């Protein structure tokens, strides 16, 4: 079985930890506890007939003027950029933010996830899609367990590319 290191990055409070908790433990908590440093979780998933042990790095969320330390990306095979559909500031300059992640990680592709689908209407989602200059890979809700598994599968597929 191969192990693949993946990172979840994005502004603080967008729900990175909640997505991982939902994916790994199938749990959700309304309580917001900010992540400090990095917490690594793992889960084995099956992609294209092979088992992959995903080592998921839950990196502490950043504010607009902070960068994820470059050291975290060493040896990473894929990264997920998570933003909050209900908070404009988390996707306002997403293009530049994703470029920084690409530069730090050396990865060509980053999986883009819009989380907290439960807080916005489909009309608002359509408006956000038009606003963002590239396609969003998946719209998720950690709270309602919508598309969470698919998001990590997408991430796992990226590790194989």
């Amino acid at each position, binding site marked *: 079985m191969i192990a693949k*290191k993946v990172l979840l990055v994005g502004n603080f*409070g967008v729900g990175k930890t909640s997505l991982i908790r939902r994916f790994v433990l199938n749990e959700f908590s309304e309580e*917001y506890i900010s992540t*400090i440093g*990095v*917490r690594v979780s793992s889960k084995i998933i099956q992609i294209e007939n092979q088992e992959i042990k995903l080592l998921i790095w839950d990196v502490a969320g950043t504010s607009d003027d902070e960068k994820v330390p470059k050291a*975290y990306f*060493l*040896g990473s095979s894929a990264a997920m950029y998570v933003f909050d559909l209900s*908070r404009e500031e988390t996707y306002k300059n997403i293009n530049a933010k994703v470029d920084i992640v690409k530069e730090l990680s050396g990865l060509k592709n980053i999986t883009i996830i819009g989380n907290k689908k439960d807080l916005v209407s489909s009309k608002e989602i359509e408006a956000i899609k038009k606003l963002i200059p590239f396609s969003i890979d998946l719209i998720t809700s950690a709270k309602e367990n919508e598309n969470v598994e698919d998001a990590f599968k997408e991430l796992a597929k990226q590790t194989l590319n």
Partner: protein
Amino acid sequence: MAISKIEHFFIEITTNLTGVVTEIVSGKFAISEFKIQQSIYIACPFLEGTLEALTINDPFLIEGMVIVSNQKEYNVDVELLKTENEVAVLIHNRTNVYKYAAQLNQNRNDLFFLKRELHEKNIELDRLRKVADKANEEKSRFLAMMSHEVRNPLNVILGYTELINEEEVSNQVKEHLKYLTISGKNLKVIVDDILDLSRVEAGKLQLSNAPVDLALLIDQLKNNYKSSHRDLDINLEFSISNKLPKFVFGDDVRLLQILTNLINNSIKFTQKGAVSTFVDVISLDKKDVKISFKVTDTGRGMTESQAASVFEEYQQNELDDNRIHKGAGLGLAIVKRLVAAMNGTISVTSKIDLGTTFQVDIPFKVDTSTVIKSTSEDVVNNNYINSSRILVADDNFLNRTIVAHILKKENANFTLVKDGVEALLEMQKETFDLVLLDINMPNLSGESLIKQKEAYHQSNSKTPILALTGNSSIDDIKGYLKIGFKDVIPKPFTSAQFVDLLNKNLK
């Protein structure tokens, strides 16, 4: 915490290139988690993937990782150095440092979300405020319109009641007419109160700041009650201190309204005895004076709880007699707002069966510049209406009839028309001594007509034009005077008021 030995804070381990622990070099921290020949990834899952990617002989630091020892989480910084054959791993326990960093981080993020929530709530509050303001404006507009619509028929009711009263009728009919008049007047007070309150609530109350002769104001108050309450079994007493400055800056109309409302309220709850008004000085210097207005009655008094809620809107304490005076319970609420607008205070003391005292204390600026006029200009005794050419324009047939009746009685030479266009035609062909224009008329309103000065200038350039209207708030009246009306006759009016105003303007 005492400074511990350094080995309490770090552990040094050597692994082979696949992460198997080959040697525990030093340290005590979390030592039980690491075993020779066991994968380091068990205790440090974050190293999987990273270890393999290390560059040989390039020291590497990763910060803030979480490791678990004895079911307890620790934050550590990890230094790695990969050589050809092995990897040296140095793990620093930085839990205490990260504990504070975590708290700061949590606080910062919580603050951010709280600020965001506050911002959203402010937006929502602002939206709700706008909705409420709009609703309030609508309400004020509705009340103003309704008040006007009510005044017109009320004028007719009171006018005809007065006309019938002048006829030869039985005492029983006279008695019925008395109650009809009281009810009509009461309805007028209610309409005025509702309109006033809505204006105060909408923040549209503008107080004037002109010289006020307080002695004259009390005289006026006395005169007002002389005629209207002569049939009551109550003595109305007025007392004014001689220490009062002759003139103060204030709003005489609203002061009169405050005192009238208080006196009316006292009269309402007093069957026998007296209602006394005292005006006295609390403090006085060259520039400022604080004056107390006290209205005391010998009425039935109030309980403490009744007194506590007496200034609330629509507050009506039950009357225990069968009198038909009963307002909308707004008089005292209006008084309280007016007093507050004048930076004053109001209080009430009351004892059951002994009576009630309302005290209003208001600060004023003393006016030393106004010269006392030698004669009172408002006393009009002559009949100037007799033989005067008067034009009356009103679309309401019944109102025209009442006006016609009064003018006929006063021996005026009058013309009646039913709208502004007809009035204009009359004004173009004839010179009048006085013109009465209803404000709201079809085809051409009184407001529009008075603005077309050039159209009637030739024959009526000096003719006093009076507004006849149900819109009788102070702001309305100010507005009418501004566009050229010489005076305003508010509906409903009594024939005495109507005649007085006409004589005043014909003089």
